[in-house]
């Protein structure tokens, strides 16, 4: 029988285009110290560190956990570095959860970061010296296929762009702040990769996120409410072969089915109070709503259009502003997991959903082929 795991500390940095006020070490330490403070713990309480970040070339440091070990107080402790493309922030939290559930450790610090201003993200997305099209260029045809298949009106993607940017105004850590954003403004912004308008795309950000995870005894001692982990799952599939559906990938469906089974979720729309979903381009909200079972295939856009995913809807998605508002890539998945945890802890601040009891954290990466998810809840499993 696996040990229970709970989140008792969350820390985030202010995210922005360029955090030139801190080094990489300073950035991860800022998030880690806030998580420890939230958990009412000190560095000495941490038994192991699990760190995640996306390709090393983003910052130009190979295996940066070696250099960051000192800043993360890891001396004499185990430190691991996870990398599963864009899903890495989520996968990193899953590895940290496993360290608690397996009873290998009782208190684990997990951190994810990206400091994109240190390097050239588009060079890196183009596979370094091999050449390529970048992330948006890869996903744009999938989005176009979704729009054609579902018959979704062109304004649904821009609706998501507006919703998430408005939500971001309630999140003090969010990068983009566009208070006067409208659907018209989004649709009039230039195409970056047709059909993705500039304002439908995520930014490139510097930022970090950290969480302190502990076991049942540790969570019971916490003075602030814990977020109990009710399930974790990861799935990976090949990115390119005839017959694969990259618009509604099987890996995402399988991952959701696995984590729902663990958490006893049978009707996601009814069973979750709030969702933090990895939406780097606006159309991915309706696409993932279908993939994750919140709407029937072809109906995800109707869910979005109805307003159900807004903060006053019945299934709010990305109250934090999501990846569309802040995108330190390696941390973006962990931010989803951490925001889900903050919601069920009741500590999400101005973007809190009242009485959120159960939340889904979701991340994806690669060619929409890496998935990581967790279900967190206010109640002990």
């Amino acid at each position, binding site marked *: *029988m*696996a040990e229970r795991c709970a989140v008792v500390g969350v820390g985030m940095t202010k995210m922005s285009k360029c955090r030139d006020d801190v*080094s*990489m070490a300073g950035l991860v330490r800022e998030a880690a110290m806030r998580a420890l403070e939230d958990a009412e713990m000190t560095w000495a309480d941490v038994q192991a560190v699990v760190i995640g970040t996306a*390709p*090393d*070339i983003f*910052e*130009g*440091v*190979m*295996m940066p*956990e*070696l*250099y*960051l*070990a*000192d800043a993360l107080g*890891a*001396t*004499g*402790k*185990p*430190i*691991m*570095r*996870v*990398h*599963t*493309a864009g899903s890495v922030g989520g996968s990193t939290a*899953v*590895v940290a959860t*496993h*360290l608690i*559930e*397996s*009873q*290998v450790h009782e208190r684990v610090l997990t951190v994810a970061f990206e400091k994109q201003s*240190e390097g050239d993200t588009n060079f*890196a*997305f183009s*596979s*370094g*010296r091999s050449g390529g099209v970048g992330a948006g260029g890869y996903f744009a045809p999938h989005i176009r296929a979704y729009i054609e298949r579902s018959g979704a009106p062109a304004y649904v993607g821009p609706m998501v762009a507006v919703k998430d940017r408005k939500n971001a105004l309630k999140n003090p850590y969010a990068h983009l702040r566009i208070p006067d954003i409208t659907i018209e403004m989004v649709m009039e912004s230039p195409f970056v990769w047709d059909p993705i308008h500039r304002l439908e795309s995520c930014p490139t950000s510097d930022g970090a996120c950290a969480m302190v995870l502990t076991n049942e005894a540790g969570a019971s001692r916490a003075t602030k409410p814990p977020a109990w982990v009710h399930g974790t*799952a*990861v*799935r*990976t*599939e*090949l*990115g390119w*072969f005839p017959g*694969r559906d990259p618009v509604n*990938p*099987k*890996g995402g469906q*399988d*991952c959701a089915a696995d984590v729902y089974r663990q958490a006893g979720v049978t009707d996601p729309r009814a069973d979750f109070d709030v969702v933090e979903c990895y939406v780097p381009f606006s159309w991915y909200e309706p696409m993932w709503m279908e993939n994750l079972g919140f709407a029937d295939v072809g109906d995800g856009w109707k869910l979005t259009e109805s307003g159900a995913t807004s903060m006053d809807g019945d299934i709010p998605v990305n109250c934090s502003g999501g990846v569309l508002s802040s995108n330190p890539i390696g941390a973006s998945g962990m931010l989803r997991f951490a925001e889900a945890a903050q919601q069920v802890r009741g500590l999400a601040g101005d973007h809190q959903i009242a009485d959120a009891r159960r939340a889904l954290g979701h991340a994806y990466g690669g060619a929409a*082929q890496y*998935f990581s998810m967790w279900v967190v809840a206010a109640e002990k499993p």
Partner: protein
Amino acid sequence: MTRDVAIVAFAQAPLDQAPGQTETLMLLPTITDALNTVGLTRRDVDFTCSGSADYLTGGTFTFVQMLEAAGAWPPISESHVEMDGAWALYEAWVRLQHGDVDVALVFSSGRASASASLRETLTFQLDPYYLAPIGADYVSLAALQGQAVLERTGRTDKDLAQIVVQRRHDAIANPHAAVSGDVSVDELLRNDYVVEPLRTHDVGPAVDGAAAVVLVAGERARQICDRPAWIAGLDHRVDPHYPGVRDLAQSKSAALAAARAGVGNGGVEVAELCAVCTPEELVLTEALGLGDAVTINPSGGALVANPVMVTGLVRIGEAFRQVHDHGRQRVLGHASSGPCLQQNLVCVLEARD
């Protein structure tokens, strides 16, 4: 407390590969070999974990291509560490502790030959603000460590050469060795210094490589393997990054990992150490508490072949062979990463009747 997990199979890609061979094509037959030896297929694997590093080939997301070798369709439960494969083994071992799944596949790969200069490439592992700009490459840092350990122990470059003589002799029986054969101390001492006190023979030749390990939990390990190597202890620790704040002649993190892995509880007969430069063996032998009776690196160790990102996993694989093929009872596999042995992993394997 921990669930019994054993290594039941290990396979390593041949040293002789076509020029420019991809990691995927090195891994494909290697993974198949490892699974085949215990009658498993990719469909039997419950959890997959791999280790590799983008920087060796100068790419991004290079591990994604390796999914073809893992066989990631239908979708699999999978993870990846940007670390030596030994840490992928650690993650897989943790996953198997949950009790809901029994079979894990671990693999790693690296193409040192894709780097114009491995010394230059690995320099990017260092603190980018203070260490990388001065070009403190891994061989120069290992030389500093070598100087420190020679001064502390009163040994000389003759003692280092004596170690290399033994490793190269043992490597004659290892088809994965890049250098092997009988040489004398006097011959070796005529070699040039790379960085004093390290001569050319004191730096393990970097090679391309790939390896796969199969982990199985519980009774099933006994059913499919005639002599599994049970993981009796597994731990890893890190030291501070800055060489200046450490006593380079000693390794606190290796000693701590060894204590946590229970090396002292019954000792070990054999130790496979991830010592890429000769003086590292001296540091590790002391830190891990290995007495004179312990056979060190019967494969020749990392001094005869250093498949970067795979070297640590190969040490654990060689330790498995000592139990499975050579009848040993209790052995140690060690992995290391970072400048001057910054990070160390210790895996104690044992036979159980």
